[in-house]
């Protein structure tokens, strides 16, 4: 099983030179730590920045510079700043190449739920609905199961849906999955030490396993 950091490391391998990328809160934010330094990519923060840099040194911390998770950040050379309408024009307008989001649940059709209103929890929607409606390639980073052990890879989402048929690839602690055009989670790679039965058992939606499934390797400590 992968740790959060390892899920982030695995996603970082999908990133290609020249991409503009939006990283969501949680595991997606960690992806920034593992993007190979030879790649020229630009990270967008939907509160109004292209060019997110690493967390600042204590002395350089600036309350006027935060990411979409409200964390203090820095800017890389060549950054630009703008207002919130401009930020989402970039997103909906198809200018962002990749969006990496967390999720509460996914359906086998590629529907995503990542917000909810219930008596137990009110958080809000943030920018997720705009991001999943954009033409960006949508990668989802999440744990395979809820804390109670139930699967997050479902036939149908139980929580309110954020977007329909929009997920491209899923990265969990058990493996990497793509969504088949006819519906279904296709296992692409499995995490080290995880056997296929465990993945079968923990995937509620239609799971497709064809041929030999490679095991991920090469994680940094």
């Amino acid at each position, binding site marked *: 099983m992968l740790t959060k950091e390892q899920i982030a490391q695995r996603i970082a391998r999908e990133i290609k030179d020249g991409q503009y990328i939006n990283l969501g809160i949680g595991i997606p934010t960690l992806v920034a730590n593992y993007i190979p330094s030879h790649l020229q990519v630009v990270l967008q*923060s*939907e*509160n*109004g*920045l292209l060019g997110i840099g*690493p*967390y*600042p*040194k*204590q002395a350089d*911390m*600036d*309350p*006027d*510079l*935060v*990411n979409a*998770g*409200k*964390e*203090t*950040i820095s800017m890389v050379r060549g950054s630009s*700043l*703008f*207002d*919130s*309408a401009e*930020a*989402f*024009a970039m*997103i*909906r307008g198809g200018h962002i190449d990749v969006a990496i989001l967390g999720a509460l649940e996914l359906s086998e059709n590629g*529907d995503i739920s990542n917000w909810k*209103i219930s*008596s137990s929890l*009110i*958080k*809000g*929607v*943030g*920018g*997720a*609905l*705009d991001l999943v*409606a*954009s033409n960006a390639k949508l990668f989802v980073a999440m744990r395979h199961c809820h804390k109670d052990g139930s699967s997050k890879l479902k036939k149908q989402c139980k929580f*309110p*849906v*954020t*977007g*329909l048929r929009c997920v491209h690839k899923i990265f969990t602690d058990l493996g990497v999955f793509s969504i088949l055009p006819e519906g279904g989670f296709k296992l692409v790679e499995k995490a080290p030490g995880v056997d296929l039965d465990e993945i079968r058992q923990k995937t509620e939606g239609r799971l497709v396993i064809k041929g030999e499934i490679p095991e991920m390797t090469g994680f940094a400590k």
Partner: protein
Amino acid sequence: MINKKVANAAEAIQDIADESVLLLGGFGLCGIPEAAIQALLERNPKGLTCISNNAGVDDFGVGLLLKKRMVKKLIASYVGENEEFEKQYKAGELELELIPQGTLAERIRAGGAGIPAFFTPAGIGSQLAEGKEIREFDGRLYLLERWIKADFALIKAWKGDTAGNLIYRGTARNFNPLMAAAGKITIAEVEELVPAGELDPNQVHTPGIYVQRIFQGDHYEKRIEKTTISPE
């Protein structure tokens, strides 16, 4: 040049009455109108509708207005960091309208720009689409969304001049320029107020036409919501 300067926050907000609809700038606690919020707490109007991306935290930002029970309705995209909000919402004492962040920004922009409605792909297939008009363009579905305008916009910039021209700093810009245009009366507070002519017109983000009143705040706490640092 028209002089928009007022003495202080109290004077700037003196006509904000019960039941007013307010736009409040900021993202999280970044770029919020701290001084106007403090002055509002003292004036204590009730039954406010507050439109702001977030609800602040329990003891800062919009959260202070909630705590004092001055707000009847909140229109926001994310309210996660506020227990007071959750308490009042669950008790049915506070109305909430959740809007996708990009839709919120665009609705406010539209309000300021005289565009009564527009179509967006955000929200299709979700609960937030219920009751809204959906139309297909070039094979894709879009939701009709209306403009947002307000009685007052309370915004914060870094520098401003007496003509109401504003310059923001870092990601503290966020919703502030959009809200400036969507308020019937826009009240801008700045960390440094200079005479008209002293800002470089090339650098102005918000032209003074959108600002009716401007003042320099006394002290900015600029509280950080989440401190994250790299090791030395």
